[in-house]
């Protein structure tokens, strides 16, 4: 432990020394820290005066926390400069090879550079926030609570780790600083969106919700650090001089994995698909389990909490049942309004969206969306229960016939997506990040083409042609 820390600190100390001798880093940082809080303070004062005239209490109450978040974020943008430079910069200057030829381990190099990338901008960020708070404290404005301040500082810290960890992943994978800078937009744009989302949370006024943002960002950062460490390879840093896209090789690798050893379509189904399912055993259990938890938790939440918001008087229940009945009349027209191919397309698109969300979040966002869908089913069953329909009967006739195929397909696609995310953050000494991604995507497409597509097609036909009939039969009194 001590030896590891010494080695990490050795790498970090040299970087710190280098940074503080580079006026191109020190001067802009110092300017940002010394000038921006004053500008922000003046802007806050004018905004407070303006808002006070119109009584914008909600905005006034949360203006300072919002400005703190922004002030803290500006110096963090330097994390990108420092982190992007970390590996590809050294590679371009030729200083990386002596370091890689030394007995320092991968984790020492990686974590040493991560430490520097996080610490310097964070110190400047907190310094900037500190100056701003001192300036604000001179005015007659409501100062944020210590709890809120702590949350924002934590959030700023989480942003720093998120940006540095993703920038270092880019720095390891890029071959030139120029390409790394271009790829940095993949960090800046999502973080800008994230900041906007957090701003909404701040103005929403519920401090505790910020914990979700902190935990979400921390989880993603943790996964990014894991991804970076898993795919940090000396070979990868030195083995490539230019980025060449070998489409032929890419196609060959993908095709070989997708087809496997199958010589015919039938063998592919009989041998390769079961082999893929075998690999998916663990993610399938996790995904199905989380789906069930989301369904039952949502059902229970609706049953317990909704009556507190809606009064279920006999008249109200009658109104709701009538509403359902009116909608069921529309079920006759369902095949016209939503033809089976269109429904199939929507469902297939949803599974692809799960994959895309999973790809940018190592499975977490895709899994969240999946759970949200199951929670929706649970919520509908809870609502049915509240208006006097049997939730079991509703499930058996309204969900199960097509759900047997559709939910299975979604569970399979989500499990395959989760495996893609898990493989990305798992160390594999033989494969690069690109190869791992390509192979795991080939596995996902195997499941998608071989199982999900046929299952969703059958589900769409049943949902349009059979489910409405069964609902009508089960609830003839409507």
């Amino acid at each position, binding site marked *: 432990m001590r030896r590891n820390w010494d080695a990490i600190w050795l790498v970090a100390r040299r970087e710190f020394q280098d940074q503080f001798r*580079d006026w191109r880093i020190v001067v802009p940082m110092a300017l940002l820290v010394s000038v921006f809080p004053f500008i922000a303070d003046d802007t806050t004062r004018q905004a407070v005066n303006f808002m006070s005239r119109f009584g914008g209490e909600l905005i006034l109450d949360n203006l300072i926390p919002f400005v703190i978040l922004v002030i803290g974020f500006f110096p963090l943008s330097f994390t990108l400069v420092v982190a992007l430079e970390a590996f590809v910069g050294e590679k371009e200057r030729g200083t990386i090879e002596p370091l890689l030829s030394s007995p320092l*381990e991968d984790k020492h190099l990686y974590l040493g550079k991560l430490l520097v990338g996080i610490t310097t901008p964070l110190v400047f960020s907190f310094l900037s926030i500190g100056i701003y708070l001192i300036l604000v404290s001179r005015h007659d404005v409501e100062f944020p609570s210590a709890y809120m301040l702590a949350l924002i500082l934590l959030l700023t810290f989480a942003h720093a780790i998120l940006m540095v960890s993703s920038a270092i992943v880019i720095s390891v994978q890029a071959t030139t600083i120029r390409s790394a800078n271009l790829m940095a937009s993949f960090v800046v744009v999502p973080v800008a969106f994230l900041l906007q989302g957090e701003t909404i949370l701040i103005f929403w006024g519920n401090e505790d919700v910020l914990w979700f943002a902190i935990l979400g960002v921390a989880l993603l950062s943790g996964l990014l650090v894991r991804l970076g460490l898993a795919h940090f390879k000396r070979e990868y840093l030195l083995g490539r001089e230019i980025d060449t896209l070998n489409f032929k090789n890419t196609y060959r690798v993908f095709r070989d994995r997708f087809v496997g050893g199958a010589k015919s379509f039938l063998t592919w189904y009989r041998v390769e698909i079961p082999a893929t399912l075998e690999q998916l055993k663990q993610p399938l259990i996790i995904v199905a389990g989380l789906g069930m938890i989301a369904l039952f938790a949502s059902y229970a939440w609706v049953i317990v909490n909704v009556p507190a918001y809606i009064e279920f008087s006999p008249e109200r229940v009658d109104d709701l049942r009538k509403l359902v009945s009116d909608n069921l009349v529309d079920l006759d027209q369902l095949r016209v309004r939503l033809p089976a191919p269109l429904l199939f397309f929507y469902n297939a698109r949803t599974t692809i969206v799960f994959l895309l969300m999973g790809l940018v979040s190592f499975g977490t966002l895709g899994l969240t969306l999946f759970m949200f869908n199951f929670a929706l089913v649970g919520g509908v069953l809870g609502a049915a229960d509240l208006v006097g329909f049997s939730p079991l009967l509703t499930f058996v006739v309204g969900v199960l016939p097509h759900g047997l195929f559709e939910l299975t397909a979604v569970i399979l696609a989500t499990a395959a997506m989760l495996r893609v995310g898990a493989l990305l953050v798992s160390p594999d000494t033989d494969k690069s990040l690109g190869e791992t991604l390509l192979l795991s995507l080939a596995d996902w497409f195997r499941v998608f083409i071989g199982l999900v597509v046929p299952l969703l097609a059958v589900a769409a036909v049943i949902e349009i042609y059979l489910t409405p009939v069964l609902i009508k039969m089960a609830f003839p009194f409507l």
Partner: protein
Amino acid sequence: MIECEDLSKKYNGDFWAVDGVSLNIQPGQILALLGQNGAGKTTTVRMLTALLNPTRGWARVAGYDVMKHPHEIRANVGVLTEQHGLYMRMTGEEYLDFFGRVYGLESETRKKRNQYLLEYFGLAEAAHRRSGEYSKGMKQKLALARALIHDPSVLLLDEPTSAMDPESAQLVRSEIARLRSSKRTIIICTHNLAEAEALADTIAIIYRGRILLNGSLEELKRKVLGPVEYEAQFSGPFDAGELELPEGVELASRSATSLRFRVDAPLVVNPKIVHELTSRKAPLVSFQEVSRKLEQVYLKTMADAQGVAYAS
């Protein structure tokens, strides 16, 4: 010691940067690895320093397998990279101290090694200046000092004297020779053929990832340029007519004032040639071996590999 067998590296799925390289370099030996840019020299060295994993074959460096013990190899090998790789904002002393720490040297040893290397390479006066202010030659010397900081048993040196002035280059060559005498195993990748000729015990020529030739300088000369040639020079025109040459001697060329012989066993036949010439009253001024440079060996090998005519 460095041993490798069928060492190969494939990039991008289909490009063999190194293909079947086999070498055996004993302690106290220097191998010069020659080849064009992109021939596979750097990739070979990187595989031997456990920076790249071989696609095929195996290698043992300083007694360790490159695949199984990369950490031990890095700790026992000194590498001078193609680019000097200095941190420009560090002083020479700080730089050596940093790498001393990286290689786990104790404080006292580190100080001694720093001092010794800085003085040896004539950098002591510039030790407190940032390396960004150094001349090219000074940078190269500092990089070489870095490669030697942990007193490694194996040295892999890529262009060790490039950008150096003649005095500095000579200093570096002396240091390399000294290291050989202290039983270090050394590989030098270089384009400086005179340097390779002066330093190397063994020379390997690599072309498109394959070793075309590997052996001592004399072996390579004999193999590529044929038997040794000797030239007899005369003080004036001399008509040799039909010479009675001993077995194993071939007349390679003639002019009015000189004759050139291709000789298999000079110790045996040279006295006989001289006797034949003097018995014919030839105005002999000198009889000596025709100098053949590594450059000729290299250029002819390359020309043969590329299928073009070699213009000697």
